[in-house]
């Protein structure tokens, strides 16, 4: 598959975009990365995602796929090369999709709210909720991994991609707020999983560095303060 046939519209710092990139990397599929401007949506983006007007968008030939989880499932489905991304068992797939919805709808949105909050009480409450969520995700990991290295078993799979993409901004949030959210005493398996995942070469090539994200966070905070 030529790189020009597969394109990803996105931003280097967006975890949802990182999901698409990592999935393509696992499938050894080359692609062209088209960086979107955060302040002005391109004509391409508006053309390929007219309903939501959001990144990421995967363009495959003349077709476009939107929404990160749907893109990862499409990549898992459409590209035959490389290891399976989705579990082979239907019940395991149902579990992976359930935890994906939990991460995206309930848990991960709190990370950004925490990072941008300057209310002490609100921060305390969010830290509590995130920590409780991580304990649930620890149980999910134990159930899904069945004693192996990843949620997907012995290789990086769907839920590894979904939760893994959240780690970079989680780390930035920990630094900004001064709290250890992924506490190895409370979620030891998850902490080990995170270290294992982030040491994979394909993951290192896709996920942004914490330092670079910290700089971006500081820029965003300065912008938000100046526009109040």
């Amino acid at each position, binding site marked *: 598959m030529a790189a020009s046939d597969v394109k990803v519209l996105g931003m280097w710092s967006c975890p949802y975009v990182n999901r698409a990139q990592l999935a393509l990397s696992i499938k050894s599929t080359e692609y062209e990365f088209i960086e979107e401007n955060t302040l002005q949506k391109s004509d391409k983006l508006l053309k390929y995602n007219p*309903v939501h007007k959001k990144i990421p968008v995967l363009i*495959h030939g003349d*077709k476009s*796929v*939107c*929404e990160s*989880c*749907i*893109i990862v*499932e*499409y990549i898992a*489905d*459409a590209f035959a090369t490389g290891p399976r991304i989705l579990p082979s068992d*239907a*019940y395991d*797939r*149902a579990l992976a*999709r*359930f935890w994906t*919805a*939990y991460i995206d709808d*309930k848990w991960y949105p709190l990370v950004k709210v925490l990072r941008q909050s300057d209310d002490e009480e609100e921060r305390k409450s969010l830290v509590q909720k995130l920590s409780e969520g991580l304990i*649930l995700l620890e149980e999910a990991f134990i159930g899904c991994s069945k004693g192996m290295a990843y949620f997907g078993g012995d290789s990086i799979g769907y839920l590894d991609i979904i939760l893994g993409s959240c780690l970079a901004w989680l780390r930035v949030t920990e630094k900004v707020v001064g709290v250890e959210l992924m506490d190895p005493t409370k979620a030891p398996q998850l902490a080990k999983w995170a270290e294992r995942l982030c040491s994979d070469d394909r993951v290192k090539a896709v996920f942004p560095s914490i330092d670079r994200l910290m700089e971006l966070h500081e820029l965003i905070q300065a912008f938000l303060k100046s526009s109040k």
Partner: protein
Amino acid sequence: MPVKVLDFWGSPFAARVRVALAEKGVSYESKEEDLLVGKSDLLLQSNPIYGKVPVLLHDDKPVLESSNIVYYIDETWPNPQLLPACSYGRSRARFWTDFIDKKVYDVGRNIWMGKGDEVEAAKDEFIDVLKKLEGALGDREYYAGDQFGFLDIIFVSLSCWFPTYEKYGGFMVEEETPTIAAWLKRCYSRETVAKSMPDSQRVIEFVGMMRKMHGIE
């Protein structure tokens, strides 16, 4: 392996599961939850995070979230296939399922729970949502072509609440999106759909009671 569904007569999300199982010809035991009295221990054990119906128990293993359940049903009992055969067709079904899940019921809820100007705003948003879904249908008989399938199940199940939205929003689906109205008639002519959907008049009465409980009327 036994199949049980934790169900609620008025839930459009539970209706999805009923339609999907009927399409596949799968026998199951239905356990009606009386959500106004309180949730059963089985429901709270099976779905500890959300405590919501529907839940599919397959050999006592819970599958949660209605769209997720329909994916599971399609993958576990392959005939007839509900999702399209090609990857792109499947991604399209997933995209619109996600859109329907995020928009239809919640915006509809703003119509019957809203006060004053909120109702008009919610009605306008709901019609906009329907128009997008009408665009996605195009001139096809069903969402994936000439066969009733996955996305039809996901969307048609929510239609049992449309008369409620029409009543409180002051609009008619048939006038605003005639193609959707025609597609609905087509879906309801299928026995699997007709027998799985709650009576929409009963839903209206139920919502009337909910509105009184919330002090809206």
